């Protein structure tokens, strides 16, 4: 999985958990919470969906890695690739 594909996976999850948000111009280097109406429960939803849909575990101490699309891709892409 490429980093761009990984970003799309995260965006697809956000589209489900925050269906009112416009996601076409999310800036990858800006914190998601600065540009989208996401709260802490929504981040827990992202973690849950990664677990349910993709078998990816994000320990609580590493939630900070999910701050932006870029950081998600940096952190999650190796995890996705390790699954294969």
């Amino acid at each position, binding site marked *: 999985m490429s980093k761009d594909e990984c970003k799309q996976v995260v965006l697809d999850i956000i589209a489900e958990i925050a269906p*009112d948000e416009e996601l076409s111009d999310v800036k990858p280097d800006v914190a998601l919470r600065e540009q989208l109406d996401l709260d802490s*429960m929504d981040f*827990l*939803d992202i973690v849950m969906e990664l*677990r*349910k849909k993709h078998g990816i575990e994000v320990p609580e101490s590493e939630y900070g890695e999910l701050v932006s699309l870029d950081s998600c891709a940096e952190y999650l892409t190796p995890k996705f690739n390790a699954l294969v």
Partner: protein
Amino acid sequence: MEVSRVVITGVGLTAPNGNSLSEYRDNLLNGIAGISRTEIRYMGEVLAGICDFDPLRYQKRKEVRVGTRAGSVSIYCAHEALKSSGADFESMDKDRIGIYVGITEHGNVETENEIHNISQFDFDTKFWTHHHNPRTVANNPAGEASLNLKVTGPAYTIGAACAAGNLGLIHAVQMLQLGEVDFAIAGGVSESIHTFGIFAGFKSQGALAEHEDPNKASRPFDAARNGIVVSEGGALFTLERLDDALARGSKIYGEIVGYHVNSDATDYVLPNPERQTQCMRAALKKARMAPQDIHIVNTHATATPMGDIQECQAIAQVFEDCPDTYVNNTKGFIGHSMGAAGALELAGNLPSFEDGMVHPSINVDDLDPKCSIPNLVLNQPTQAKRVDAILNNSFGMLGINSALIVRRFSV
């Protein structure tokens, strides 16, 4: 003790046969029921009263996803009630608004859903949602309405089995009279059709209705009745002290002049007509009214074999010499909407103050002789000489009884 008079100034509802008071009332007068077949987990096909209001009228999609069905019902009904009240909600002091929502039960739907969810993951509880607790706390349906409306006054539910719709209103009257709030949004809601447990429970109890025609399945007082049709829905009213309502020139749907709540203390599920009689009489006493002053008695009767007979016995005793008192039932149209029942059934009768019509109990092809009491309005609406007062019965499991009396408003 003299207390403030409290009046109903707005009505918001969703029922299986209508999403506004006018649509619902038209269907009650025209014999149009709203029961259909639906699939439910583990049970297969069941009969249910399903509401088709649009939650997105008043909620964001994310609110619908995170919240509960009962929350959506509350929010829809609260907004509709506020609209019908004509109150200037934006300028109201939100600290002084109370939201009091009657519920039969809450949390079963969400708990069942989560158990089903983790069953897909070998019952590993790390897949259990973090939304579970806010969805299942008992105040959820009222709390979601407070979040949505930004109401900062007291917002909570009243758990009172199937008497809960009346209890929501009664509690609101008390809080207005105590001066705890200046404006109340109150009634009852139910999301019960989304839990298999309630269907399975009634089935095990031998009290779940079945009929080849869904709209004929709920048939209180009919000799062939065979149980309850479970429904969802809600009705919330806006209530104000009379002086406040008059000061803003509000339409007044009726005045709550009396009520009573008591307990059978005899059985988990079987009703007790002696206590029901006592409850109605105590409500009349509080209202300083005689039985003859009541022109509509809306029954709780759910179409169980014994329950209908016992309520009819109780009504016959209280209203034994009342030629102008009509008796009806709403569940033939909408099934049993649990926590919403009392509130929806009151809403369906309130327009009688304006049109003098008494909606019928439908699906009574063969009246059970044991339910044959005077002035039971069957299958066709009746034009009453006049309708000045309604007594609304709502009873529930564990032996809770409630009777609420609403009178046509006059100064």
